[in-house]
């Protein structure tokens, strides 16, 4: 109970203003009824009536297009390293599942070769979470023993309990924020109200993905015809990978004019053939079945083997946006029951 506070709803704009003075604040903004995390200059631009943003806040850390270094093209060979953006940033309104996705893709950018672009942004990003009070049609974060109101992966978490927010602090970054006088210590009744809101939200999630022992089950059915059946209807459109908070694949391309140029890192999708097509024309993953199977295995088999965690947070974006209704909950549940 020691690190929980209360923030009155009408104090929220003041709190956001305080953040804006110290940080570059990103918050959910309505852009032709598509919610995206955008920089805001004043609290009025925010729109808090959203289930979750279309594009995950991962785009604040692992930008869709990022300059790796600049150069003068051709064979004279002049390279300038880029400035690393260590500006202080804060994201308001991040959902617990998206915050968890950061902790899942952190090791990819930290192991062996440290990726300065991602890591500098990660250290300088303050996560102000907002609990989900009414989960969306395809949310299933409870399948991973998480809760729509868990403060495990954010610096501070706000939960809407009527006319005020119940604030939980997690880690010392959060402690700095809560020093401001807008926050008053929370009472016991506030905490019960929060648990009640949390329970209500949890009960609304009825979709469930059976993931216990999924890695071992998948080991046995790699060659199974099941994957052909699942992938037959896939349009290889790639929307699922572009919207997934735990997808970290990227492409590296050179862009140049006659006088200057840069090597740029861009999001990539494993669902298109060009992803693994070799210059000789050989493609180890020629068919949609190979690619679909690789996407599911990467998240539910290879990631657990390499980094010990399932690379899915149950945000449901891939289910919402798949034009042919390939439902990852259904695919994984059915994969679990396939007889090898």
């Amino acid at each position, binding site marked *: 109970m020691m690190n929980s506070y209360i923030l009155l709803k009408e104090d929220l704009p003041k709190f956001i203003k305080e953040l804006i003075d110290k940080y570059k604040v990103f918050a959910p903004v309505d852009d032709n009824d598509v919610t995206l995390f955008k920089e805001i200059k004043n609290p009025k631009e925010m729109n808090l009536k959203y289930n979750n943003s279309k594009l995950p806040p991962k785009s604040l850390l692992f930008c869709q297009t990022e300059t790796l270094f600049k150069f003068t093209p051709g064979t004279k060979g002049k*390279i300038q390293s880029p400035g690393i953006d260590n500006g202080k940033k804060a994201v308001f309104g991040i959902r617990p599942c998206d915050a968890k996705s950061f902790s899942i893709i952190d090791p990819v950018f930290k*192991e062996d070769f440290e990726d300065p672009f991602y890591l500098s942004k990660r250290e300088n990003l303050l996560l102000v979470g907002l609990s989900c009070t009414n989960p969306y049609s395809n949310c299933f974060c409870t399948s991973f023993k998480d809760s729509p109101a868990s403060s495990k992966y954010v610096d501070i978490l706000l939960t809407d309990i009527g006319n005020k927010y119940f604030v939980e602090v997690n880690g010392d970054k959060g402690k700095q924020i809560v020093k401001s006088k807008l926050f008053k210590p929370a009472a016991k009744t506030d905490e019960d109200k929060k648990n009640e809101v949390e329970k209500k939200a949890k009960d609304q999630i009825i979709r469930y993905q059976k993931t216990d022992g999924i890695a071992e089950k998948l080991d046995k059915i790699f060659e199974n015809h099941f994957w052909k059946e699942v992938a037959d209807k896939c349009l290889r459109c790639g929307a699922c990978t572009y919207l997934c908070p735990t997808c970290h*694949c990227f492409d590296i391309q*050179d862009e*140049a004019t006659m006088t200057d140029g840069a090597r740029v890192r861009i999001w*990539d999708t494993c669902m298109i053939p060009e992803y693994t097509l070799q210059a000789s024309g050989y493609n180890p993953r020629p068919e949609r079945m190979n690619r679909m199977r690789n996407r599911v*295995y990467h998240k539910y088999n290879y990631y657990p083997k390499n980094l010990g965690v399932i690379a899915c947070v149950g945000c449901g974006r891939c289910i919402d946006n798949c034009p042919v209704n390939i439902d990852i909950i259904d695919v994984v549940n059915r994969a679990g029951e396939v007889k090898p």
Partner: protein
Amino acid sequence: MKENPYQPMLAIIENVKEEVGGQRAIKTFRMKFKDKEIQKNFTFQPGQCAMVSLLGKGECMFAISSSPTKKDYIEVSVMRHGKVTKALHESEIGDVVGVRGPYGNNFDVKDWKGKNIVFIGGGIGQAPLRCLINYILDNKKNYGKLDVIYGARTSEDLCFKEEFEELEKRKDINVHLSIDVKEDNWKKYVGFVPDNLLKVKPSPKNTIAVTCGPPIMIKFVIQNLEKLGFNEDQIFTTLEMRMKCGIGKCGRCNIGNLYVCKDGPVFSYKQLKKLQGER
């Protein structure tokens, strides 16, 4: 600024040797880092790869084909295929390219001390083997009998022709070259590399077999090696996947849960058997 793993170091092309002309042209590029300091402490093991960048065109991962014992340069042998390799083939001596690495694991030369070694190469697959052969020849006393089985489609397509002539003169290594299709002034073996392997019949006792080449050749070579009695710990190969970052982050070069650029490119056949995933 934290060290940027994607940024290459500048290197000058010192020498361009044309190995094979024609449609499937292959050239060997000798490169020296502009900065002496970097060149001095650029140490690598045989079998490791380096990312070579043509600024404005892109970058590709190549096996370093010169031996680590040659300290003051590195060489890569490149077949002309796509945008970057075409630009590389058009570059001349004195041009500046970017090099970063070394990446990937390496042939386990320490573990193979005291063993006989059979090198089975096909086409451009000979590049990583050349690095390994030269390294082992420079430490010949630690190793036993050496056999080189190398083939290509035509005699014109054979790489490192001059070096093979030297090797044929040496006593401590036997070389078995082959070409796929009969040619009049070709006295040596005619046929595919896996069949040449059966003809040479190396004994599996205390021997390591290393094979690199097109996937179809590796498949049949491994089958024939097993016929000759080699077990799965004695067979090593390198695998080829499309690579972009070279440091295990961009996610595309995975076979099963292993990344070829980080956990490979050298794999033992034992590993390959356990690995699911498309090669």
